[in-house]
């Protein structure tokens, strides 16, 4: 445990020295503040912020995760020569870089929301958007780790893969779902679209945003499965549960690869 915190602290220090994270915080600070200044009130800003979050946090998280694996190669290999448990080292590295990134988003967006008073006015919506951003950061940093470890020696392939995966999850996936909905339009599709969305973490986060801001439209839809899913807390619980599963799976996968890898 002591070793774990020690690794995390070292990571934090080196990150702060790199000033990268501070820049990332400032970007969200400026973005949120200008959205609030020029875009009107609470729900508008929070929705714009959630759009940015859904699109860019996955990309930044993944790139950052993979970049870290590549850049700290010597450091990791040096540490591995020491009598350190690989599990501890993995968690130390993962938490050491994902938590500052998460904090950067949350603090960067939280401060403008606080000084413009939105945090008090729309507290539950703000908490949801910030929490989802944090969650997505963790998920995608761990995905970046997985790809970094998978393509440890072929950096170009690794980067290419992350970008394709991001493009697929953020944009193309929904296009395919829409296409399938139109192709199989004559069949009952409610369960299919819910299942399909549950397989994509960005869609899960989007559904949670939708449950907060578009519930009145969702209630206008008359299908029984959707009404049960969205109308009661089923949707909220299922989507959050799946999101947690989405966090557990890649971190566990990364850990497995890390443990078995011959560096």
């Amino acid at each position, binding site marked *: 445990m002591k070793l774990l915190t020690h690794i995390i602290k070292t990571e934090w220090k080196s990150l702060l020295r790199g000033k990268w994270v501070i820049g990332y915080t400032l970007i969200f600070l400026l973005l949120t503040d200008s959205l609030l200044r020029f875009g*009107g009130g609470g729900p508008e800003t929070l929705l714009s912020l959630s759009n940015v979050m859904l699109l860019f946090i996955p990309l930044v998280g993944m790139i950052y995760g993979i970049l870290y694996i590549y850049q700290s190669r010597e450091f990791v290999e040096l540490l591995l020569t020491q009598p350190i448990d690989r599990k501890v080292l993995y968690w130390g590295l993962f938490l050491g870089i994902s938590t500052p990134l998460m904090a950067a988003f949350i603090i960067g967006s939280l401060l403008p929301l606080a000084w413009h008073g939105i945090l008090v006015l729309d507290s539950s919506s703000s908490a949801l958007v910030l929490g989802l951003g944090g969650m997505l950061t963790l998920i995608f940093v761990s995905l970046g780790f997985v790809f970094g470890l998978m393509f440890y020696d072929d950096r170009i392939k690794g980067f290419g893969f992350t970008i394709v995966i991001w493009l697929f999850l953020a944009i193309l996936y929904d296009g395919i779902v829409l296409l399938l909905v139109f192709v199989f339009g004559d069949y009952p599709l409610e369960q299919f679209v819910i299942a399909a969305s549950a397989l994509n973490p960005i869609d899960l986060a989007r559904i949670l945003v939708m449950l907060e801001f578009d519930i*009145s439209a969702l209630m206008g839809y*008359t299908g029984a499965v959707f009404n049960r899913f969205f109308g009661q807390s089923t949707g909220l619980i299922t989507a959050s549960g799946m999101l947690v599963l989405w966090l557990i799976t890649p971190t566990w996968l990364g850990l497995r690869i890390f443990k078995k890898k011959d560096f």
Partner: protein
Amino acid sequence: MRNLIIHTVLLAIIFLVPLSVMYAQVVVSPEGPLTSISEAVKIAEPGDTIEVHSGIYLESDILIDKKLTLTGIDNPVIDGNGEGFILIIRADSVTVSGFRLQKTGRSYIRDYAAILIERSAGVVIEDNLIDDVFFGIYLAETEGGLIRNNTVRSYDRREASSGNGIHLWNVKNPIITANTVSGMRDGIYLEFVENARISNNISSENNRYGLHYMFSDGGRYDNNTFRKNGAGVAVMYSDNVDMTNNLFENNWGGSAYGLLLKDIRNSRIEYNRFYRNTVAIYSEGTTNVEIWRNHIELNGWAVNIKSNSSRNRFTENNFIENSFDVRTDSPRNNNFFDGNYWSAYEGYDLNRDGTGDVPYRPVSLFSIIIERQPESIILMRSMFIRLLDQAERILPVLTPKTLFDENPKMQRIQ
């Protein structure tokens, strides 16, 4: 000295006795001598005041057929015991205030109400609590009348077996103000009512409509709150209705509307706030309605306008983060949208006059997609859908080409 006092008392009695005959006061109290309100009404002369003291009176079908003032002292309860009406008023200028009326009869044939007012003028119903009833206050063929500061509530969740809170049929110039109605079928129901003035009421959690206008011309309702009603507010088959400064919120469901307009002509909808309704304004067969300066925020659909609506003008409204701004069933547009603020507008304002330089098209491609494939609603706000919408806005193919706001505002209209 003693003589003087006796004289004074005698004098007082001589002068006061005729006075008390003129404004006789009949007192009803559980301790007696008079313990029944019906009895009191029978012995009272027109113009008398009946003072009812605190207690529970098990009475129903109390017929008031002369001008009387019924005043409850310390909230007396009249319990109809589930039989018939409680108060039936068939005289002009009757006043009823300060009572708690509960448990009317329930029937599928007769509209049992806590207070039935028939063929009367100038009746005042004030400060009553009406609880667990079939119909609350029922006005039929009356003239004028003031219904103020009453609370009507009931607990039946089924539409067919619940009655209306305040029901007006064939009434001229009534004033309905500062009442609270909940758990009824329709909160306030008007049929063949002329010039109703309905203000400052709160109508919430009713099984059907918070307010229901039928064939009622020339009325005005303002400063009311309609919240969580089964189907919102409906204004149907009426002309010249003014709807101002009301709050319509949280009316959710497959057929729930903040405001449903059907066959309305020459009316005005101004300064209202629509918040989190499935459909904020639904319009069918309306003509020449002015929708001006409303605040429409976070609804599923801000406006659902059917193609049989024409010459309606939507101007200077704020449309803020509604899932869909406008929905329509026709490629043609017979209505007028101009100078509204749309939070989804992404245009620019180069000459800095506060008005966007490119028109805004409020019907999105996605709203047409979910019309065809309702399941695709799960893709709302996804990046892919956003790209599709953007492409369609630049070059409209499937959305109505003539439905656009030529002068979208860049800032919210205060």
